[in-house]
């Protein structure tokens, strides 16, 4: 009886400590939706090939340097929705919370003197309607698509400032403000005799940088380069608990939730009269990713349980190629419709290293998009732009093989059944023996913008 009560207290306290530790973990807002869904209708329809030509508020995300080449004051609002026909193990894999609003604004700061018409500010936002952030980490053995999962369920807020150094050169920088979480949590019986929590969890300020440059070689040839710093939610909360005279500890470590990698992009755009074309190449450092895994270390007297599932060899860096184009057609004397199209290709972010308990799936991807934007000038008091874009991310079919553990101790990258005498028998891991994925993520957006 004593043992059971002790165990009750232990697990209750451990759970309480974990609860206290975790309660602060859903506390950050970072980029992500722009990378997975796209940054508005034009970006979606041009497959994200906008590192050179974006000069409005979305340039804060694509290339803050391009912001410096913009003009006037512009506002844009674009509802965005995604629909998943992605598949995992033959079943549809939904993308959670796939609706939000893209807002973008930009304008020239009215300095005088040597800064006249040289400083521009912009902001790009993705606002999910239901909650600011949703921290969704599934059990590690459950099949999941880390490229799409838990990267889009949060606010994206990227403000930027650009400086036009010359008529042909602009540089810009933006910030992505993050909040990591760390601190102690403690629960123990207080003077009242009840379990009383003591928390001092700090949401520490973290900032990730966006930077870029745009160079206009001529009126028809433009170059751009940008860098987006890696960001993720670092959470580390060390908890202690004491109930019934028993000391307990539980640490929760969520190092790379809501992850986006370091991304370097080079692009070139060509103005061919009615047609403008852009080609971008991006390098994304996915090898730094641990995967969407919640680390748990729980210690009870005489027992220690851990989740040692993070591995640095599962993901690898990728190079992405994107191309986009716009073709303008005059309507009447002053209005114009621009037809947009784009395509791209990106290899799988997963490497060849065999997985153990985890069931991460990915494959090579093809991007495609179509859309149009209508600029109405002299019809209303201000120039109004209506835009629509439809995009698709085709996840090419892939099949990852899992290996069974055949003898103890089980090597890294294997899965085991319940019987120590025959570990390869009775394996219930849902990704064993093969993890298949494929399908398409569809994205659509309608936007309205105005020049003030």
């Amino acid at each position, binding site marked *: 009886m004593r043992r059971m009560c002790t165990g009750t207290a232990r697990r209750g306290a451990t759970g309480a400590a*974990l*609860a206290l530790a*975790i309660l602060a973990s859903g506390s950050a*807002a970072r980029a992500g939706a722009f990378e997975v869904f796209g940054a508005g209708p034009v970006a979606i329809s041009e497959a994200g090939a906008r590192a050179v030509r974006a000069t409005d508020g979305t340039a804060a995300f694509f290339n803050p340097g391009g912001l410096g080449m913009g003009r006037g004051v512009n506002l844009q609002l674009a509802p965005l929705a995604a629909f998943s026909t992605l598949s995992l193990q033959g079943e549809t894999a939904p993308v959670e919370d796939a609706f939000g609003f893209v807002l973008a604004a930009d304008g020239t700061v009215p300095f005088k003197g040597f800064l006249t018409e040289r400083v521009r500010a912009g902001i790009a936002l993705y606002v999910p309607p239901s909650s600011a952030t949703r921290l969704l980490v599934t059990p590690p053995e459950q099949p999941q698509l880390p490229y799409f999962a838990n990267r889009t369920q949060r606010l994206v807020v990227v403000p930027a400032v650009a400086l036009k150094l010359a008529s042909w050169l602009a540089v810009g920088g933006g910030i992505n403000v993050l909040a990591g979480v760390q601190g102690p949590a403690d629960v123990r019986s207080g003077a009242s005799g009840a379990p009383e*929590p003591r928390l001092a969890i700090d949401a520490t300020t973290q900032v990730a940088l966006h930077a870029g440059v745009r160079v206009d070689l001529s009126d028809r040839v433009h170059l751009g380069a940008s860098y987006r710093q890696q960001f993720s939610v670092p959470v580390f909360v060390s908890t202690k608990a004491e109930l019934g005279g028993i000391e307990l500890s539980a640490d929760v470590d969520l190092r790379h939730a809501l992850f986006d990698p370091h991304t370097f992009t080079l692009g070139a755009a060509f103005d061919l009269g009615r047609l403008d074309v852009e080609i971008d190449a991006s390098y994304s450092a996915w090898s730094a990713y641990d995967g969407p895994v919640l680390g748990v270390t729980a210690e009870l007297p005489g027992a220690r349980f851990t989740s040692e599932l993070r591995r640095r060899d599962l993901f690898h860096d990728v190079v992405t190629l994107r191309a986009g184009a716009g073709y303008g057609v005059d309507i009447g004397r002053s209005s114009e419709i621009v037809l947009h199209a784009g395509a791209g290709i990106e290899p799988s972010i997963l490497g060849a290293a065999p997985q153990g308990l985890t069931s991460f799936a990915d494959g090579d991807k093809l991007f495609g998009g179509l859309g149009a934007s209508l600029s109405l000038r002299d019809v209303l008091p201000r120039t109004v732009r209506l835009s629509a874009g439809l995009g698709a991310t085709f996840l090419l079919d892939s099949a990852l093989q899992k290996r069974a553990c055949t003898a103890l101790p*089980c090597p890294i990258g294997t899965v085991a*059944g319940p019987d120590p005498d025959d570990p390869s028998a009775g394996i219930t891991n849902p990704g064993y023996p093969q993890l298949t994925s494929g399908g398409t993520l569809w994205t659509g957006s309608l936007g309205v913008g105005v020049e003030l």
Partner: protein
Amino acid sequence: MIPRRSYRCRLPVFFLGSSVLLAIALASPRASATPGTTFGAGPRDESLVRSAVAEGDTTDAATENPAFAAAEGTHIRVGYGAAAPYLRVNGIDARVAPILGFDTATHTGRHLLPALWAGVGFALHLPGARVARISFRPATEPQFIFYEAEQQRLSFDLAAALRYGPISVGGGASVALGVGGPGVSIDVAQDAAGPRATGATDISLGYRLAPLAGVVAHFGRLQLGASFRGELAVDLSLQTVVKVALDGNPINGVTTVVVSGASGYEPPRVNLGARVLVLRGLRAFAALELSAYSAAPAPVADVSIDVDLSSKPALKEGRFVEPRFRDTLAPKVGVEWRYPSLPLPPTFFGETVRAADPWKVAVRAGYAFAPSPVPPQRGFTSYADSSRHTAAIGAAYHLGDVLGVDLSLSIAAQLHVLETRREQKSLLSLPFAEYQVNGEMIRGSLALEGQVK
């Protein structure tokens, strides 16, 4: 005569300021507004101890009275403030952390029609050391509940207003986030490779909004103002499920833990105030602030531990009664002198001269008294607080045009004195049966404000 620039030229400044404020605020986990309501938001507001409900800077619209936003121009204020608390329990320093942070605000407004103005404003308080602190301590310990974690949070407010003739009306919202969702699950299980712990989470930060409203009536040398700020709390309700399934383990089962509470509670507040132009350049302010603390939840978290074993169920709970705080009525007065200044209206209720204020120097002072909402502590709880006197001084200098921006610099200093208060509980066996509370806080702030012409 200076030619008027188009409105579009001023919007980017507003965007720039608002973007940074919005970026920081929206990317942060929680919001509450206590630093602004305790000290003020910006040197002018602080040196007048928040008595300027009837006439404030446009950048005070989101924090003090939304009706202030109904004015022409584009403004941005960037400032920094720091408070050093020396609060004591039984004469011993309670080590309440310094309260530091940036206070920034933007505003843009337009004269739409001959008698109609409109404007919007944002304000942000960003704590210096951290974005937010979530803190719950055992209620039995003496704790300065209004000066600890509540002062270490980011706050974000926005306002919009219209003015027609002598009446300005505004509204807005103070934004915060609550914590909820299915919560956390932890599985302790084993296979042939041995025992292991794995986890999963589904936690959402939902939006929480508190309404702001305000009105200002302009009657020549007299202005009357009123503002309302709705209640706001950082609530959390989080469930953790721990499953243990180990071979031959007698304590296999499911433990469910629910932690819930409200941190950083801001009560509904109503502020009524007046401003009188006493002499040329001399303004006098008075205000009364009603804070409805009586609806406040307990500033400690409830814990519920539900253990479902195969052999025996158990339940353990920790929950404290409502704190029964009292509503408070805080009087505040302030004076401001600007030199040079516009002439007074020809009569007391005559129309104010419409021209740019030519001031170069301003000096300010204020006094406020804030009664404590905490009732005598007679049971398990040991909340520490006492009535507070605040004296403040401040000054400002108008720098003039710099790169097309009309700049001014302001400073303020405050002294807060918490009266000595002694608590004696009914039973000496209760935790902290006797204790005494008192203390001081010193606050200083500095800000640069720019107006785009």
